[in-house]
């Protein structure tokens, strides 16, 4: 199987598996215990915290371990809203194409009386800094904008947004789940107040992540119970997971430049070759984009059947089509960049990783055009377009 769905999740690196190994049956003490077994585990936990902080340009006491990206996003929003409500500030700024961990959480806040501004992301899938500044009011308690989009990989102008938010004294959260470990990030340089990340997106284990919260920025407790994570997130620490995340992040940081050179070359080869398919379109900006993210739409076909056929050709891919998701609407991300529904249904996302080889890319370049041609042969939509009954859109 050729795995080109690394934005969904990644393979855990061998060095990460090795690093996690001792924490199941050797250094398995509870970090809260007084005895040596507990204290030893605690030392390892704090070591991981330090090393993770270093990779992000943060201080170790700004790192809060969580169960992953979704929890971190929920927590950041919840905390900023609590703080906002105390000061009668109940306005939040976000974008139309955030992950549902953000959008669904904000929907809940809307029910509690918060007003949400959803900024447009335009055809290139990038938010305008000027739009952010214009949207800020006296009531704004939070700006939450993702670092890079999970479907189309577009990278947002985070440092500039950070500057604006700092200038206006507004809390700035970024969901960096797709960006951490893939592009260089420094929370201080970007003036980020809060940042979410998740280990399984950079060859770490699933079910572990982290929320960065800048010192001096308020962070209310999220899980109540024991005193873990400085009384803010109760629960015995997932030490194997945290150690795995730490090693995965260090590896990703160290290898980033070299891996990215190769991935950009692969990604652009995919764009060049698959753009030769007639009536196709690249989704999202091709420059300000994650090195490993490819996303295109092909007219007249539907994404799920495309994925099933690619699966038969040993390629694991993903699509923003409705039928791949259990919903009847295509991806909100593709609609946010202005794609008509029928074009959004025919999208293909290939996401690469350090394990992707040129053979994998060549196999995809051979397979995708065959599948598109096959599906178009019996597509009534394509048929009408080719006969001129309806117009081609792309």
């Amino acid at each position, binding site marked *: 199987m050729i795995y080109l769905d690394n*934005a*969904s*999740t990644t393979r855990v690196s061998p060095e990460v598996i090795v690093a996690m190994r001792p924490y199941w049956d050797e250094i398995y003490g509870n970090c809260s215990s007084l005895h040596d077994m507990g204290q030893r585990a605690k030392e390892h936990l704090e070591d991981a915290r330090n090393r993770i902080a270093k990779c992000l340009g943060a201080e170790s006491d700004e790192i809060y371990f969580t169960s992953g990206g979704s929890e971190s996003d929920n927590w950041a929003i919840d905390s900023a809203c609590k703080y906002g409500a105390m000061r009668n500030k109940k306005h939040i700024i976000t974008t139309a194409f955030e*992950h*549902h961990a953000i959008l669904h959480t904000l929907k809940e806040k809307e029910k509690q009386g918060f007003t949400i501004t959803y900024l447009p992301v335009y055809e290139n899938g990038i938010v305008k800094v000027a739009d952010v500044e214009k949207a800020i009011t006296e009531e704004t308690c939070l700006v939450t904008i993702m670092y890079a989009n*999970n*479907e189309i990989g577009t990278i947002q102008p985070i440092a500039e947004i950070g500057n604006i938010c700092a200038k206006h004294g507004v809390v700035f959260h970024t969901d960096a789940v797709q960006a951490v470990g893939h592009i260089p990030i420094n929370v201080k340089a970007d003036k980020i107040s809060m940042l979410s990340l998740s280990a399984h997106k950079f060859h770490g284990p699933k079910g572990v992540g982290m929320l960065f919260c800048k010192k001096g920025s308020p962070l209310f407790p999220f899980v109540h119970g024991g005193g873990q994570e400085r009384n803010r997130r109760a629960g015995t620490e997932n030490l194997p997971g945290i150690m795995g995340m730490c090693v995965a992040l260090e590896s990703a940081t160290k290898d980033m430049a070299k891996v990215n050179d190769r991935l950009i070359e692969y990604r652009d080869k995919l764009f060049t070759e698959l753009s030769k398919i007639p009536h196709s379109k690249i989704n999202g900006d091709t420059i300000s984009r994650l090195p490993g993210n490819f996303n295109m739409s092909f007219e*007249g*076909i*539907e*994404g*799920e*059947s495309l994925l*099933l056929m690619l699966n*038969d050709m040993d390629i694991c891919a*993903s699509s923003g*089509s*409705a*039928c*791949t*998701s*259990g*919903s*009847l*609407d*295509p*991806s*909100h991300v593709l609609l946010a960049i202005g794609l*008509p*529904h*029928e074009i959004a*249904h025919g999208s293909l996302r290939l996401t690469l990783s350090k394990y992707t080889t040129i053979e994998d890319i060549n196999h995809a370049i051979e397979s995708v055009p065959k599948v598109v041609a096959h599906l178009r*042969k*019996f*597509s*009534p*939509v*394509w*048929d009408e377009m080719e006969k001129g009954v309806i117009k081609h859109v792309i």
Partner: protein
Amino acid sequence: MLYSEKVMDHFRHPRNIGEMENPDAIGEVGNAKCGDIMRMYLKIDGDTITDVKFMTFGCGSAIATSSIATEMIKGKKIKDALQLTNQAVVEALDGLPAHKLHCSVLAEEAVKAAIKDYYDRNGIDYDKSLYAPGTCVCCHTADKKDD
């Protein structure tokens, strides 16, 4: 695997696929906005469906349900083809995931739409209530997972 072997077989090797020359009737249902369109062509001799072809834009289950539906009505009397239900289509495919059931409704509707077209073309009287415009399946939206 999301789908049964039967569904995958019809998806991989769709029966009666492609355009039909000089059909006696055509039915098309669904819309591209929702991600599923089925077009069914019929050849009819007297009261018998002698040939069926289809073209589908849609997901795996949309393609598989149209394919099996053509097999289920080919050679049948019109009045028997009209009895085709989405449940029968789903059973013939050894089941579909719950959120894919709408695709089987589309197959049943495509058959009905084609037969209605035949009646209309030939000025044959029929019970209009049987062909109430299909409710748009897009309106019942389920939750979406993303990553």
